[in-house]
């Protein structure tokens, strides 16, 4: 059985953004503008744990530009066995559905894949749609917001997971194959080891183009059903702070309480 972790390279959480004529750019004060999507670290960790505890084979997959090789190297350095980059001009500008079509087609090329793991969402688009849409395109079962894999029985073809919903925790059993997305509660991601980093740097990561990935349906920016042309900075919050100063804390607190009642937020 093979477990595939689908990852994305995204701007770092500390990135600062600028928009010029609808074109988004960013820079990172920490000097690392592109990172493995932070939510995906949990997906990679869970995949490696399945490798260690259940003896499954593992592969990290991403669709993106050649820059995304760095994110795949992070997966290899953490402990994934293989990595594949899906990269073609024709795929660029896809919406979540186009991305799901490409990923589903690529997953269809990977033998013995029975489980796909995603992070719960990517921090750039923040939609969380892709795992479910990949599942629909593959005809597999989606299990989103998984906080624990409680049982995995590859021979019996079942998995039991705990999902973290808004109102509580739901335990569900599903038949394999499944596409799961995981939340932060599931584990504590490891740091890549020194040996892992050396190995990842030497690895030759195959790149699959549209010739290798027979996509069903249209993809790329022309096929995108969502127009993303209007992106703009946030309006400034129209408040200037009122610092409440007084002779005593008791007085400061009284003034603040007055203000909050006047604002009708209490």
């Amino acid at each position, binding site marked *: 059985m093979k477990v595939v972790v689908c990852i994305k390279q995204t701007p770092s959480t500390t990135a600062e953004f600028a928009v010029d004529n609808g074109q988004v750019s960013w820079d990172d004060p920490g000097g690392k503008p592109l990172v493995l999507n932070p939510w995906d670290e949990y997906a990679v960790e869970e995949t490696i744990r399945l490798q260690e505890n259940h003896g499954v084979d593992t592969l990290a997959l991403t669709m993106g530009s050649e820059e995304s090789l760095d994110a795949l190297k992070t997966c290899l350095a953490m402990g994934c066995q293989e990595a594949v980059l899906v990269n073609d001009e024709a795929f660029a500008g896809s919406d979540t559905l186009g991305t799901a079509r490409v990923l589903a087609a690529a997953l269809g090329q990977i033998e013995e894949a029975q489980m796909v793991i995603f992070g719960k969402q990517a921090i750039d688009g923040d939609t969380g749609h892709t795992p479910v849409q990949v599942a629909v395109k593959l005809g597999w079962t989606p299990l989103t917001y998984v906080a624990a894999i409680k049982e995995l029985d590859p021979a019996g073809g079942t998995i039991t997971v705990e999902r973290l919903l808004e109102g509580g925790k*739901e335990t*569900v059993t599903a038949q394999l194959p499944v596409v799961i997305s995981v939340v932060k509660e599931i584990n504590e991601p490891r740091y890549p080891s020194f040996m892992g980093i050396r190995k990842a740097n030497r690895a030759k990561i195959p790149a699959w183009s549209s010739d290798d990935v027979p996509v069903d349906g249209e993809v790329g920016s022309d096929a995108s059903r969502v127009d993303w042309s209007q992106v703009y900075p*946030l309006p400034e919050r129209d408040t200037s*702070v009122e610092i409440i100063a007084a002779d005593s804390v008791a007085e400061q607190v009284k003034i603040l309480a007055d203000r909050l*009642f006047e604002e009708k937020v209490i």
Partner: protein
Amino acid sequence: MSGVWVWIEHRDGRMATISLEALSAARDVAGDLGVGVTALVLGHEVKSLAEQVLSYGVDSVIGCDHKTLATFRVPAAGPLVASLARELEPAVFLAGASIVGRDLAAWVAAELDAGLIADGTELKVVDGQVVVTRPVYAGKLLADVHVTAGLQMITLRSRAFPQAEKIGSSGVVEWVDALVAEEDIPVKVEGFESSAGQVSLTDATIIVSGGRGVGGPDGFAPVRELAEVLGGALGASRATVDAGWIPYEHQVGQTGKTVSPDLYIACGISGAIQHQAGMRTSKVIVAINKDPDAPIFQLASYGIVADLFDVVPALTEEFKTRLG
């Protein structure tokens, strides 16, 4: 038909708040488009809920009452909604951007090859298309996006729209059959452990949060007490969660929850950009911090520069007195 559809989320016979918000958004969009609103009520023993939904001024309800739909499972509900939409061709589909709302919308969009936009915070009808304002890059930028062709599917962020009020309706509930038989649903729900009783961060009108300034797990006690007195939820910064002082479910920010309460009280939180991304749309922000240069003060409406351990208990006492 070409109307506006709105999916109703519910548990134990009660409609989710986010669906009341979706109902009001649906009524506004339908009004601008000059079409009707149809609500989808799928579940088990949902007859009275369907009647109740009708009274929120929707033109019709499509109901499905079946055991297979008792607990929301996307492989049961998704194909049914997709098949209804294929047959009846709504123009717009709205759902709350909760976990199950996202799951359902993503499933239906994938089956129908429809455009889907997540986390709308504002809707505007322009030339017959719904233009959706939504945050991107974790709330650091905004985008006005729209679906370019076919069914327009949109999920709506919690607390971005007012809740619908009951205004009565002359419409009727039309009942349809379930589509997927139990043996064809590859998911069984084994149990549900409710976190009812706790105020949920995403629904809360008031949130009191603690940051590194609380100093340790015990430091959350006064922060929690203030939240309780105000009937609010307890939030936390990433630093305190990473330090193990408080469970992750309380984390507000880019890798935690995005919240939008009426009142956000930040206690001992410096206000890193990742934290701001999760709370900057709060209506009124109060910052309590010893450090006058903390970035949180640039975002705040009111600030007190002092030790939170002096201010927060005093504030709790003040509200106890005033709120009786």
